């Protein structure tokens, strides 16, 4: 809600961090044990200095082709590099780009031929390779391969999963006789990406036609086509285990049944793994869940119902099948049960039902977690409970696997970047040499009452953070300063929290989810998580910005002016836009534009009547155009104190006639003691009505304001009269506004009606 409220104010800042654009990476992947050159296309890339890898394992050995729209990155991929996706951003002297990806595979990479748009010109492939190609608009890419009868061939295309374009690939395979032997379109493992398995029935040359199903290709329509005899399961049974555990898992959904031994990662979470069968790894990963639960597979239930936390694994092989698992739970201990299927790339759309010992359904859920199910329930008694799962459309299949997790409701604790109005894929922070910049961090699970301070580690050399206490609401700026001589470098920073109640520092988890691709209506197609904050040092900024911390509070329904000044570097005379990067709920601020020649100005902050009463750190952001890139710096953090009004007032509903005098009697109440004088102003008074307010002393509670209406004063009912109370204290001015006043100005009665009492009964208001 807060982000939404402030989104408008800061929307213009959104562009500031993505002026350097990385839109396309070709090829989209390479083979391990090779050195590959990735052509990165985008905008403002000519001063690229490095690559910020979000995952370790690859090494940049050279940058070349420094042009505005491209840079070539030469990468050495070690023989033992982990398979999978390597997200990265480009670091230029002026900023950082959004994240794109390269994929490291085990199969040799083949470049797409220049002309292979017809069956006759199909590009011949050897089996067990990965083609890096592109589907342009209205394009059909043809490939050919030889196969022998009985061979099991798998073909998988990775298009939309590359996060470059909303490609919806379909592939058709034609046999030696020209007949289509299979068509693949959607797949559970690749969503819109096709995945096919083919048992060859006759020797000969087979052809593949690959295209967007609606011919909507693009110059961004890169794909990787894996073809070969590798295993292609859609999932594992069981699809999870304990950290570091070695499990024996069945491969599900492949042409040939297989079992693999798999050592699970050490870290808790959902992981992508690459099972290997007969020395051949799957081309794209399957997913497993690693946590501390006990795992039970279908058909191997323990004698006693296991207690939570536990997990059950199974497959709904037959249409209409319902699987049932029993667990024990204690009365009153709230339990969360999750049926994971789509999250693990299973085609199943699970429906969960929880039943008691007598078979009475207690609760059920279909789509609590996307298409997966989640229920939370409180067991009414100690005992065993049953959880059943079936497919929503009552389908069944050898690959329709699931994992049911039973356990306590998980708490969430950590940080994420949350600049209002900025897209979540515009992540990371650029700090100019000798300057300062900030971003906004949303914390969760960190209780401000414990006096938690948030600091950051693993920052680039010469950069340090300003530790700040996390206020109520959990939103705190991250302010980084770089020394003048800090090298232009980058790092992945991590949060660190210190509680006043705890003597030692402890690390917090940074988890920032961002979409890899947006499709129609800017909806995220798929999201990935980043567990660190990319920070990059950039060349010096052309200015610095500073504001004086207000010494007085901003009160609800009040206004405050905030003097701001900038210091321009030599020769910089451009326009600077300044705004608060984030303001507490209920507080809004103006945007200040300092044109050429100006270095000072005032921001106005307004608090509405429901503004959050708190003391919160605030930073100002100043942005300017540096050529075609917009750069930003921030002020030092300062605290904004939002308080209840110091004085309250009650405005009357009064009436008067043209040419008459009247009194507008206001009741005042001092809510707290303070030094200083109070002045009042009436706002939105009708034209032709003058007022005179008496002096206000410390004990004034009644404030009769004398009104004088001119003979032509504006007749009518004026309902928006408000009172401005200006408190001038030794530390500054606190401005209150109190609404609710009303003044009715009437025309005088005709002389013949005056004094006979007719007016009292025939008052029809203004005429």
């Amino acid at each position, binding site marked *: 809600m807060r982000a939404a409220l402030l989104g408008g104010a800061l929307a213009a800042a959104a562009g500031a961090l993505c002026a350097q654009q990385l839109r396309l990476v070709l090829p989209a992947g390479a083979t391990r044990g090779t050195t590959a050159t990735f052509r990165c296309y985008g905008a403002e890339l000519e001063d690229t200095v490095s690559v910020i890898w979000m995952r370790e394992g690859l090494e940049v050995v050279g940058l070349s082709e420094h042009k505005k729209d491209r840079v070539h990155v030469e990468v050495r991929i070690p023989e033992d590099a982990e398979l999978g996706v390597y997200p990265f951003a480009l670091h230029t002297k002026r900023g950082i780009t959004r994240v794109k990806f390269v994929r490291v595979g085990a199969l040799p990479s083949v470049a797409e031929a220049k002309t292979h748009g017809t069956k006759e010109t199909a590009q011949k492939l050897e089996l067990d390779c990965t083609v890096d190609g592109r589907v342009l608009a209205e394009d059909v890419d043809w490939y050919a391969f030889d196969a022998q009868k009985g061979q099991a061939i798998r073909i998988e295309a990775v298009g939309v999963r590359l996060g470059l374009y909303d490609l919806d690939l379909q592939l058709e395979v034609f046999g030696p006789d020209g007949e289509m032997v299979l068509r693949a379109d959607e797949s559970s493992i690749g969503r819109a990406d096709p995945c096919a398995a083919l048992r060859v029935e006759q020797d000969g040359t087979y052809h593949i036609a690959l295209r967007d199903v609606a011919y*909507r290709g693009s110059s961004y329509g890169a794909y990787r086509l894996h073809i070969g005899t590798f295993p292609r399961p859609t999932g594992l049974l069981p699809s999870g285990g304990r950290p570091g555990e070695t499990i024996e898992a069945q491969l599900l959904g492949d042409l040939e049944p297989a079992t693999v031994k798999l050592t699970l990662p050490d870290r808790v979470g959902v992981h992508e793994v690459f099972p290997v069968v007969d020395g051949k790894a799957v081309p794209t990963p399957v997913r497993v869940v690693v946590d501390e639960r006990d795992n039970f597979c279908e058909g191997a239930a323990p004698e006693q119902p296991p207690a939570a936390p536990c997990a059950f694994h199974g497959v709904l092989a037959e249409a209409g099948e319902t699987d049932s698992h029993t667990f024990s739970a204690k009365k009153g201990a709230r339990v969360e049960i999750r049926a994971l299927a789509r999250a693990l790339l299973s085609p199943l759309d699970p429906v969960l039902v929880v039943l008691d010992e007598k078979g009475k359904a207690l609760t059920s859920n279909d789509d609590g977690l996307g298409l997966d199910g989640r229920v939370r329930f409180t067991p009414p008694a100690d005992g065993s409970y049953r959880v059943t799962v079936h497919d929503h*459309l009552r389908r069944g299949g050898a690959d329709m696997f699931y994992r049911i997790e039973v356990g306590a409701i998980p708490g969430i604790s950590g940080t994420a970047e949350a600049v209002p109005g900025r897209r979540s894929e515009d992540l990371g922070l650029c700090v100019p040499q000798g300057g300062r910049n900030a971003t906004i961090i949303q914390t969760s699970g960190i209780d401000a009452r414990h006096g938690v301070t948030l600091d950051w580690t693993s920052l680039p050399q010469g950069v340090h953070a300003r530790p700040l206490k996390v206020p109520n609401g959990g939103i705190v700026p991250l302010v980084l300063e770089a020394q003048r001589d800090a090298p232009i470098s980058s790092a992945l920073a991590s949060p660190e929290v210190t509680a006043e109640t705890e003597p030692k520092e402890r690390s917090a988890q940074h988890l920032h989810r961002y979409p890899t691709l947006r*499709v129609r209506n800017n909806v995220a197609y798929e999201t990935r998580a980043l567990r660190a904050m990319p920070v990059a040092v950039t060349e010096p900024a052309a200015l610095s910005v500073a504001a004086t911390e207000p010494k007085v509070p901003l009160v609800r329904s009040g206004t405050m002016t905030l003097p701001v000044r900038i210091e321009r570097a030599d020769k910089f005379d451009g326009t600077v836009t300044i705004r608060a990067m984030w303001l507490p709920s209920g507080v809004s601020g103006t945007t200040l534009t300092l044109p050429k020649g100006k270095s000072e100005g005032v921001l106005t902050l307004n608090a509405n009547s429901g503004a959050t009463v708190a003391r919160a750190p605030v930073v100002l952001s100043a942005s300017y155009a540096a050529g075609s890139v917009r750069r930003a710096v921030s002020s030092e953090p300062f605290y904004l104190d939002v308080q209840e009004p110091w004085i309250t007032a009650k405005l009357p509903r009064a009436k008067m006639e043209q040419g008459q005098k009247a009194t507008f009697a206001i009741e005042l109440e001092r809510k707290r003691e303070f030094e200083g004088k109070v002045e009042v102003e009436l706002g939105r008074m009708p034209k032709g009505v003058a007022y005179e307010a008496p002096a206000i002393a410390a004990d004034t509670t009644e404030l009769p304001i004398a009104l004088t209406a001119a003979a032509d004063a504006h007749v009518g009912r004026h309902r928006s009269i408000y009172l401005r109370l200006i408190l001038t204290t030794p530390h500054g001015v606190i401005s209150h506004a109190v609404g609710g006043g009303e003044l009715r100005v009437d025309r005088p009665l005709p002389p013949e009606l005056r004094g006979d009492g007719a007016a009292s009964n025939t008052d029809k208001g203004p005429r």
Partner: protein
Amino acid sequence: MKTGITLWCALALTPSLAVAQGGLTAYPATVTLDSGLDAHRVVVVASDAQGITVDVTSTAEVSFSASGVAEWREGRLVPVGDGEVFARIRHGGHGAEVKVTVRGAEDEPPVSFRNDVVPVLTRAGCNGGACHGAASGKNGFGLTLFGYDPARDLRALSRDYRGRRLDCAAPEESLMLTKPTGEVKHKGGKRFEREGEMWQTLRAWIAAGATDDGDAVPTLVGLKVEPEELVLAGPGQRSPLVVTATYSDGSLRDVTELSLMSSSNPTSAAVEGGVVESAARGEAFVMARFGYLTEVAQVIVLPNADAWSPPEMDRRNEIDELVQQKLVKLRLAPAAPCDDATYLRRVYIDVIGQLPPPDAVRAFLADEAEDKRARVVEDLLKRPEFPDVWAMTWAEVLRIEPQNLEQKGVHIFTRWLREALRDGAPMDEVVRRMLTSNGSAFQVPEVNYWATATNPKVLAENAAQTFLGIRLQCAQCHNHPFERWRMDDYYGFAAFFAQIGRKNGDTPRESIVYDRSSGDIRNERNNAVAKPTFLGGDVPEIAGDVDRRKVLAEWLTSAKNPWFAKNIANRVWARFFGRGLVHPVDDVRVSNPPSHPVLHRRLGEKLAASGFDVRELIREICASATYQSAQHPGEAASATYAGMTPRRLSAEQLLDAIGQVTEVPTKFRGVPLGQSAVQVVDPDGGNRFLDLFGRPDRDSVCTCERREEPTLNQILHLINGGTIEAKVRSGESRLARLLKAESSPDAILDELFLAAYARAPRSDERERVLRSIAEAGDDPRGAWEDVLWAMFNSKEFLFQH
């Protein structure tokens, strides 16, 4: 070529032709007189040996098999005493009988609100759509359209407007009487006379307390307009009709004067005061509406009463037999058979939407085998273009377009249709699969059917119109004005679609359709939950967990369904003749009867008997002499099928044909070069030519969206538009190829004529063209382009003939 004639010549004549044997018929054959006030008119028709009918009611002699039961008075039977008697009618040596049953001859029953008052309001036009039957009423007084909700009408009359519309103490002063008689200013004018029959009915009802008789009176169950068929010779012939209503208690009532009557073709037969008057030669259907029912009588008007003997007709199958029966009635001789070239071009365009290539024309013309026409049809049915054409045709009425479907949905749904048709999937199965589909619209192509609309009412309307040819829309708000469909029918049918569940899939663009097994739709007439009811009134028993759509699909696609097979067959028929036996094909209603009812029924039966194999029906149509006839030399209406009616090529056919003749294919937006206009799945293909020539946007399921009427823009585009110019001038064209190969002018001309017209040029055409080419000198390209351009603008090219 005339095989099979003998089989069908032996067929018995249809019952309607029995009248042609000559004789006397009295209508109705049975009359009940149910009170002392009752009367029933009788129409007596004499027919001669030619089948021409003449009204002889006024001159017929009437006697009774027994006395004291009924009397004949001014063309009506009136009661005398209870009993049963036969009225014996004689004229010109022929006789007929009417069975009369009199009950309650002494009774004078009170006026019924439902059975007497509401019909008067309908007859007087009070509750018509233009008057108080409008949705918002008129001048503060609203009645239900044609009295579909009498209870609400009674409220409007007796309660609304502070009850001032009725005055039971002084009935004559009631606004209900003074307004329509014009005694009080009435914007709707004078509707009936004071003291007239309608006035008396209303007055008596008001005087009796203006009460509703609710369920106490029998309800209307049937309607008949007689004679069902009139054959009038020459203009100015008058022949009365009698409209008989049947009620739930078995009583019959003469409602001729209370019925609303209209003619489908007033230039041939007008109807006024229940009497048909003939005019120009032709055929008309006279519709009579009473209560919620509508029925029609057929009127054939011949030019004169001269004797006519039908010429020998080429009959190859049952289609010819049934078409020619009508021709005989209309005294029309069918057109001569078309020549081979015409047939080949016709059958290519109709079956696969393409012109025959010159080689195919040459081969066909040179072929002397008897069965070559059947063989070419057989070959075309196997061509990949055949499913393309039919997939496009169905995609139009299924509304496969990217506004409601995703682009992907458009592609995969169309492909599914195409492959189903290619593989010969029976049409009933195709429809069943669509109607019962569940799952992701990206994984199960036919699920996209449910993306074409989401509102259950719209889905019901669309399904009825697309698969049954029935337009139900009117009955959403009131009883259908020209059909029997009532609001109860509408909501009962819509209830089949009330439990469709939808949810988002894994990706933002994907949606999943499933059966919710819960959810209802309420009848807006009475706010009651509508029970799933088949059209026609049968209410199936559906268990709670059974998908209602499955039950619907079984009924809808059953061979016994009275509309489904006929509708599919009629759509196929329309493609080959340019008009349906019911026309438009998606407007089946009593008031729009088929031009050939028996043929309509038989085509449906044939389709069902063949396992809904459309190809089988196409074979039979293409084999018929009716399809193989040339254009009719006279002015025979297209609905008679006396000859082939020329029709402009459709937008896609035309553009593809121009591309074929020039050998310059059209590039459509979003698809690779090489796809024909028929194959383009997106109706918004960004092609101006297709838009101009009427390619539908697929905004509705109505076939009327395909615009076939000519426009000035079309003509201008053909004369100097970019489409033809670009193709004619292209350096990659057929012309360029022929010129480059230095073909002789004769050969080039032959090739162009064969490609465009599927025939060789006539000698006069050859002489004119070659002269102009010769005049062009050394660079004849421009002259050839002019020739080609002129050919594209010729009717012979633009029309299917």
